[in-house]
């Protein structure tokens, strides 16, 4: 690997446990500030799912000293957003470097303490319910993961989606649950602060000490997650919906984010479907015309995740013929040839994707936070070596082990009504 794939950064830890990482990039007139909290949907109570994500909305409802988060940020020329996934919650903003202190001020006050307003909770519950409807209920195939997750997972909290198992859980959230959630999950010792842009490391550390330093560390609720037992038989579910054409979703349990298998299967999913020359696209879409659209990917979770192949069937094709064709493509990986050139192609794609995804300050701050959360920001510079080291033999062996019938769950959308 060339040195171009390294990212320079400086790291520091405050006495309250907050980790800070700075990547100076003076080619940008902005500073990106990213705060990752180590709290995701997997940490939720099974009776209060969707809470981590609802909470992310409440983080914009004002903090104890600042009644409104967005207005001062916009006044300083900043812009922000946030997302929640199974594993963590990420808040990010970019701001002209002249006004960076406003970013520290805003983020530290909401880490310090929220305003906890009943009005804000009531409104954000409605907003999240509309988000639930818009993304999951008001689109054809929008509810696929509401079925797939509980089909593939029986005990591990990945069995519910980030938005929540059902709308009722969001409706039932109470202000005291919100307060409780804040103090056991939002704390300097459960967060990572990263910065990229026109800022010197020393300057960032001084500013962080000033604004975040006075916040005491808190007692974080210990994580207590039950591992998913090994699946022992094929699972199948059919849902009937007025969809334009049937669709199939096949998922297999795979290793966690730290496993060797993670890199091998990431590349295998690219061999299957990344780009117009990928195998599934060429064979089952273009040649055999069985699918109008097909995709293979890994869910990318920290705990053991899923390898997914999903597709919409072409007009008049049955789900059975589609599934059969996917199984044939899997056999071609295990028993047929995989050329070095084909593997190199997906490695080259991964390399350029890495370069392209580290070209602006916001992505750099976000990526540094993610790798530090995984254990060490330095991993960001070792990712490509790991990807480069994957061999054809490993791809085949990992595929043979993964694609066992008893490791598979299958969801099929059918439309029984006339169309």
């Amino acid at each position, binding site marked *: 690997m060339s040195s171009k794939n390294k990212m320079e950064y400086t790291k520091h830890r405050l006495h309250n446990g907050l980790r800070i990482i700075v990547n100076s990039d003076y080619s940008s*007139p902005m500073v990106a500030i990213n705060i990752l909290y180590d709290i995701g949907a997997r940490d939720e109570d099974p009776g209060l799912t969707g809470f981590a994500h609802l909470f992310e909305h409440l983080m914009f409802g004002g903090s104890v000293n600042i009644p409104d988060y967005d207005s001062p940020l916009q*006044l300083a*020329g900043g812009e922000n957003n946030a997302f929640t996934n199974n594993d963590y919650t990420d808040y990010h903003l970019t701001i*002209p470097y002249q*006004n960076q202190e406003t970013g520290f001020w805003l983020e530290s006050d909401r880490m310090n303490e929220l305003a906890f307003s009943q009005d804000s909770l009531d*409104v954000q519950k409605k907003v999240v319910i509309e988000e639930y409807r818009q993304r999951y209920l*008001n689109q054809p195939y929008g509810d696929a993961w509401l079925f797939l997750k509980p089909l593939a997972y029986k005990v591990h909290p990945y069995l519910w989606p980030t938005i929540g198992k059902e709308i009722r859980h969001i409706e039932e959230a109470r202000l005291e649950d919100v307060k409780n959630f804040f103090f056991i999950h939002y704390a300097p010792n459960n967060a990572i602060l990263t910065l990229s842009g026109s800022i010197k490391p020393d300057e960032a550390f001084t500013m962080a000490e000033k604004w975040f330093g006075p916040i005491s560390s808190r007692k974080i609720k210990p994580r207590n997650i039950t591992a998913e037992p090994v699946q022992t038989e094929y699972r199948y579910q059919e849902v009937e919906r*007025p969809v334009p054409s049937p669709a199939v979703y096949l998922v297999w349990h795979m290793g966690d984010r730290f496993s060797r298998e993670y890199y091998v299967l990431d590349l295998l999913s690219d061999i299957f479907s990344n780009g117009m020359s990928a195998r599934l696209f060429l064979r089952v879409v273009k040649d055999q015309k069985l699918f109008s659209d097909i995709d293979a990917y890994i869910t990318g979770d920290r705990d053991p995740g899923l390898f997914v192949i999903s597709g919409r069937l072409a*007009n008049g094709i049955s789900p059975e013929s589609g599934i059969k064709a996917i199984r044939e493509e899997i056999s071609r990986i295990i028993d047929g040839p995989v050329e070095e050139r084909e593997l190199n192609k997906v490695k080259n794609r991964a390399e350029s994707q890495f370069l392209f995804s580290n070209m*602006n300050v916001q992505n750099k701050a976000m990526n540094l936070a993610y790798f530090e959360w995984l254990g060490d920001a330095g991993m960001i510079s070792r990712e490509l070596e790991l990807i480069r080291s994957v061999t054809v033999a490993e791809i085949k062996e990992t595929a043979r082990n993964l694609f066992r019938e008893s490791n598979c769950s299958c969801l099929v959308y059918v439309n029984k009504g006339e169309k």
Partner: protein
Amino acid sequence: MDRKIMPDIKTVTRLGLTHPENARLSNGIPVVIMPAGTEPVCRVDLVFNAGSRYQDTIFQSSLTNQMIPEGTAKLTGGKIAEEFEFYGTYFNISADRDEADITIHSLEKHLEPVIRLMSDVLIHPSFPEEELNVIKANRIESMKVDDQRVESLARKQFNRLIFGKNHPYGVVGEIQDIEPVTPAVLADFHIRFYDQAHCRILVTGPHPDQYLPLVDRFFGENWPVNGHPLNTRTPELPSLQTSQQKRSVISRPDAVQTAIRIGKPLFSRLHPDFMGLTIVNTILGGYFGSRLMSNIREEKGFTYGIASHLITLEDSGYFVIGSTVGAEVWEETVSECAKEMNRLCNDKVNPGELKLVRNYLTGQVQRSVDGPFQLADQLRGLWIHDLDLNYLTDFMELINRITPEEIRNLAIKYLDHSNMKVVAAGPIKSSD
């Protein structure tokens, strides 16, 4: 330290910009070389005046664009894609109403073979029938999915009302329009519009001196002029055939939300009021803290999001508010939007809000040129009106100069809701 007091802020009034270099290839094609970035990657945009306004068959423009990488005399579509992907290159195509693009993002070290392939694909496409049939079938399937989404139903209907369903900007393709498209229809469009006469090239990357010779070798010397005058555009479009109908309701009993569109025809970026109206639009619905977001989402919780936009086309434009809301509150949302527009027409914006919008917008302009590809996007967007990055400098200047009176006058002139179209698609009774 008092946490209640906001740190001092500065209003940024100057935009640090590198300007590109203009050149011509040996066959006369205009080229812009944009020095930008530090990473060894670059981007090449080939832009053609080949959007749907020029087509004589529906889908001719977008399918020609989509079929260009599907094969040459010597290479199959699969092989072309494999070559690009082997070099780690991203090859993208897109077509809108005015223009069609072919774009690559490439590692600099592979630029030569990638440009060679790009030029072969562009100049010698074979439009194989087999591939076209697959693309047509798959396009039909994805349109079936779209037709179940209330957002696309509302968008399509709004477009018809604004431009008129037979106007080149108002034509909306439907599933039955796909079947008649043949390889000959596409080859014909390709010959007429994907030539040097309709082409402009933008190259962005850290080593500008290396790009011009390479681009000239493959798009200049090897691509003789076919006789069309350079940078040809068709004459003005017919005038808009905006519908008389003011309100249109599409009933989808099985939907769980209602998509709404409110708006009216306006003008392109070249209109003297466009820049000022962009600022008015920002206040109304152009950012997270906008009046529409504060009212409809943050106060009432009716929606996950609501926004207003000024859309500029080459020879026209329109204003539109869009949102997807709870089925039972769509009419209340429409009347709240009207209230917010009235408020802009009746009351001058207060100094606090104006300062916030000023600073937010100057930050947005800075963000919009931060990074080589963002910069390329800005330049690319301004090209259609032969504008350059000075437009952004002028915009910065106006942002910091515009007065509350000017804002109110622009709102009175253009945001009178009583002459706007309202489209709603959702679980609404058809008797409505």
